[in-house]
């Protein structure tokens, strides 16, 4: 393995986690990550090592998402899988039916650009400045999307039964 490959593999868990939250579906998320890794490998000479691997990979992932998947994922309804049955296995299905919390449903109701920003900041802990570069908008826009996303989810926290903690009983 080259140094590039080692650094790349190190980032896979973060990419999967982010893509999973973004798409709401693990099969689709892994398709997105796979495409991202392939493009990263084919552009390895364009990678500027001093700038770090993570922002570069997230930018590639963002572009693939915007160019392809974001137009497929429209107003996802929790538990509805007909849009992407090719990616679903029965295991994923049980995962969705049993543990998809109201919180996750609320997350998937956000517009994809608000969800992206919330996940990059809240889940991946990436700085506002880097998020702005990844998504290609000014920092002010990042912050207003973040604010709207958080307001939406906040309403959901209030009076919520903590379904997230209920595990599937097998």
């Amino acid at each position: 393995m080259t140094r590039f490959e080692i650094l790349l593999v190190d980032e896979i868990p973060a990419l999967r986690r982010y893509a999973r939250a973004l798409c709401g579906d693990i099969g689709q998320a892994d398709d997105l990550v796979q495409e991202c890794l392939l493009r990263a490998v084919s552009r390895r000479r364009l990678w500027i090592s001093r700038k770090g691997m993570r922002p570069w990979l997230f930018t590639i992932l963002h572009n693939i998402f915007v160019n392809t998947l974001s137009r497929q994922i429209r107003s996802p309804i929790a538990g509805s899988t007909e849009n992407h049955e090719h990616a679903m296995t029965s295991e994923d299905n049980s995962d969705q039916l049993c543990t998809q919390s109201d919180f996750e449903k609320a997350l998937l109701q956000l517009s994809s650009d608000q969800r992206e920003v919330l996940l990059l900041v809240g889940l991946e802990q990436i700085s506002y400045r880097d998020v702005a570069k990844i998504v290609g908008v000014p920092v002010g826009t990042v912050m207003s999307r973040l604010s709207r996303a958080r307001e939406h989810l906040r309403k959901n926290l209030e009076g919520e039964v903590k379904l997230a903690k209920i595990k599937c009983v097998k």
Partner: protein
Amino acid sequence: MNHGNQKVTEDELQRFVDGELGEAQAERLSAVLASDEALGRKAADYREINRRLGEIYDEKTQGPIPARLLLAASGRSGSPLWHVAAAVLWLGVGAIIGFSLQNQRDADGFLRPLPVEAAFAHAVYVPEVRHPVEVGASEQEHLNAWLSKRLDRPIAAPDLRPAGYALIGGRLLPDGHRPAAQFMFEDATGQRITLYIRHALDTRETSFLHAEKAGLGIVYWVDNGLAYALTAATGKDDLTETAKIVYREVNP
């Protein structure tokens, strides 16, 4: 404590929660939040959202990394997106057909309006992983000569490297009954942009016009008998800046 002078903006609150404030500012906010119940609760909720995102999605992606991803990281697997590309193509075609029907009154003769035709060509070829172009950048001279011959006008791929875009290549396209050209470019992150060129129906020169459809931005103009349309999934400002570079390249 004097709250009148200590208004906390939404921006500040968010920066506080996300650790984007300097030490002094963060201390000031801590003090205000401690004495303002509503704000304190809001900050706690924002933190709770971050915490939950971590909790839910760490758990959902636990376990070994799928083999297909490890293979991809070493460049040894194919693209998983062919089916997605096909689906997007149909969605895109549907969206654009809707767009063109709406705009039929603008159409001149049987040709579709320039931004529609350009967005159509963009949506069809940009998701292509293996065959985005007919002739690659390595044969740029041949590409320029071929397209110039077919459009019967000197045509050359502009150099968009100042905007960070490298040429991938180009192709010849049918536009009504006449030929049109498409050049495709890509930046270091894989963001793709296309330049569509055809003979102008109305040869009066225009300023940069902007259209938006199906998540794509299009800046288009007529210059010296040719109609140009630059299309990408980016905002109007970025696109206009790049269009200026194209304009200068064509009119040195």
